[in-house]
């Protein structure tokens, strides 16, 4: 695996949200999925920044939906994980699990 292939933590969250959501993954649902699971506010522009990076790396692909009135006539951009993206998510998860095996006590935590 090359250094370019590594996923950042937020990129991994976005990619996993897309995998969870399946066909319904677009900006709003992805952000809400991450907010619901992490209980943190998510800046919408950050989601798109991560999505652009993931698309550049070939981990997701996108397509435009139909424009709707509640969106001011703007189309949704739907995202789908590629096979390469799914493999990368799994590989990152394994790498993180290995690194977390028996770590020393972190500052502020009791061992």
């Amino acid at each position, binding site marked *: 695996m090359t250094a370019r292939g590594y996923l950042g933590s937020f990129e991994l969250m976005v990619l996993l949200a897309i995998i969870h959501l399946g066909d319904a993954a677009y*900006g709003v649902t992805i952000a809400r999925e991450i907010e619901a699971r992490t209980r943190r506010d998510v*800046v*919408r522009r950050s989601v*798109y920044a991560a999505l652009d990076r993931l698309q550049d790396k070939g981990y997701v692909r996108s397509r435009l939906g139909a424009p709707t009135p509640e969106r001011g006539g703007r189309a949704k951009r739907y995202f789908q994980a590629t096979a390469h993206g799914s493999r990368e998510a799994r590989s990152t998860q394994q790498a993180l699990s290995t690194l977390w095996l028996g770590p020393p006590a972190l500052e502020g935590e009791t061992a």
Partner: protein
Amino acid sequence: MTHRAAPRLASWLLKRLGYENEPLAGDLLEEFHDGRTAIWYWRQVMTTILMDVPQHMRTYRTAGLLALLLVGAFWLGSSLTAPGVNADALATLLARAQSEGGFARYNLFTGGNLSRVTIFALGIMPYLTVLTVGWVVGFMRSLLRHAPPPSAVGPDRILAWTRYAAMLLCAVQATAIALWLERQAASVGGLSLIGEPGGWGFRITLVLTLTATTGGLIWLSEQITTRGIGWGASLVFFAALVVGLPGAVTATLAQPEGAAGLQGLVSSVAAMSGLMWLVEPGRRRLYGLI
């Protein structure tokens, strides 16, 4: 079903200052209609605008680099006197020439390069003169015929002719400068304005130098225009102005009638800018932009 309106100013700012991202704008609107507060909407919009700044900078990087190249070229060229010209003697004459209003203003439009006979002595002015004359002729013809003149030649041919006419005008003006320098000659404070005896060698060298540099500026201005960065001729013109303006203002204020001179200077710059604003639609038509 009607939706409550999203904060207009925020939406307007997002459209103007955000980097085109229609799906994101739609997402924000959808969530606002789903019950998000105006504060939430504003926060998302402002964060988006801030995060888009680097993307805007990347987009305008080429334009910024070209602008820097232009100003740098003028700044460097302003210190290079044309071959065969005696810079010291010219400096003595400069004070006298500066006091002649019309000359001083035309000189300003070349970034002060004309009075010092630098390699950019004529700047982009011959090209602008031809463009302006072309615009006036076209305007008069359309007035006389009460309709736009039929286009007998394509934009490429018109541009080519504009270029040739500008180069011809440049050669004529450069010859006039060479002859003028020879005539002043005889001396200014005991120094000759030209470093060596005049004659065809000096004239041809000066004409070739000034025509080549103006040709280079015309090429650069057309590169700027065809790359869609802006109207190249006006950018080159204003780059010369930016480099020459501080010196021109200082020199004008140093004269006894400094305030009146400054007024004249400001009105000349305003008039030239206005003229370019008038010529601009013609240029846009030529390039098929409107």
